[in-house]
């Protein structure tokens, strides 16, 4: 039954993917394209769309693959599959951690990891910036370097607005508003 297969495959994908949805791509290729459920080209399209639509990449891709191979029930099975390992493991970790939160070593370990995580976020931001400004949003070096003045202009404009809002109006940044604004600007400026 395809539904159980979808659930099982995406359960495995969820279980063996560390550190971000993109790591699951090779496994999906192997399992889904390998089985002939869809073509490589289709999967590439799905990945592209999953990157641009809201929500976690992994969930987008699972829903996509699931719906194409098994309708809405397929989408449900795939998505549930990819979520379940996370859910179970984190519940276990939460239960364990709640007992050890005041342990000196746990605290020390977490203090050591915080700067690392901060660095990971910053590097993601910087690399993403390079991708958008120099490679048109594609992976580094996958295409020729083409400096995107429009994107830089928008970046400076919106960045400036955020800074002004903070310094002059003393108001924090509302991410949802910024996203809507930047999407709107994108529609106006880039189409």
């Amino acid at each position: 039954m395809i539904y159980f297969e979808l659930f099982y495959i995406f359960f495995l994908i969820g279980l063996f993917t560390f550190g971000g949805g993109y790591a699951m791509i090779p496994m999906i290729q192997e399992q889904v394209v390998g089985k002939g459920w869809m073509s490589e080209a289709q999967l590439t399209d799905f990945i592209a769309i999953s990157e641009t639509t809201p929500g976690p990449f992994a969930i987008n891709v699972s829903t996509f693959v699931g719906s194409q191979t098994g309708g809405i029930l397929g989408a449900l099975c795939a998505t549930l599959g990819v979520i379940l390992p996370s859910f179970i493991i984190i519940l276990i970790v939460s239960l364990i951690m709640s007992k050890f939160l005041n342990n000196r070593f746990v605290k020390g370990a977490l203090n050591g990891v915080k700067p690392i995580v901060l660095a990971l976020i910053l590097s993601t931001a910087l690399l993403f910036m390079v991708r958008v400004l120099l490679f048109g949003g594609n992976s580094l070096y996958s295409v020729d370097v083409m400096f995107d003045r429009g994107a830089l202009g928008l970046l400076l404009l919106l960045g400036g607005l955020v800074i002004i809002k903070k310094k002059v109006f003393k108001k924090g940044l509302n991410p949802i508003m910024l996203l809507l604004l930047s999407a709107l600007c994108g529609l106006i400026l880039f189409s």
Partner: protein
Amino acid sequence: MFLVKKGNKFIDILLLFLTFLKVGAFTFGGGYAMIPIIQREVVDKRKWVNNSDILDILAISESTPGPIAVNAATFIGFKVGGFFGSLFATLGLALPSFIIIYIISFFYKTFMEWTLVQAAFKGLSVGVIILLLNAVFKLKSAVKTNWLGVLLFTIALAVMLVLNFLQIKVPMITLILIASGLLVGIVATLLSRKEKTK
């Protein structure tokens, strides 16, 4: 008293669902993009966790299998509302994706070719960059600025940037970096303990 508690719990779970519905609906371009939304909704508005906790949650979410957004939702959900909290937080996170993608799957070829979509997404990408940089700015106050913290930060940043620019693929590099951070933290605690007993 018991009734009041139960009522609170129900509202908390509902709020978790709605909050993560927002997170799921406005996270574009990858797991980390959820951070600014979570900061705004979970830290600033609901005060369920603070910025320092966010870094811990991210570290755990990165180190455990599965999508980091799901891990984070489950974690925060559990902290606020136990099992049902984590259940509804995760459901809320997944729902917008599920609905939107399911609908798009029927006409995805057309969707891809819509220049409007591409244009909007380019704008969104710029927005996400700003949000991520702002998130780093807000989170750094939650990190101790002793020499060790700065050193770890700089090394991790350098490693990530260099590997990416030179296109060297190290499998599970984020895991390795996180594990290193945990290890250094433990060693530092050990050493400071030794200092105290001298």
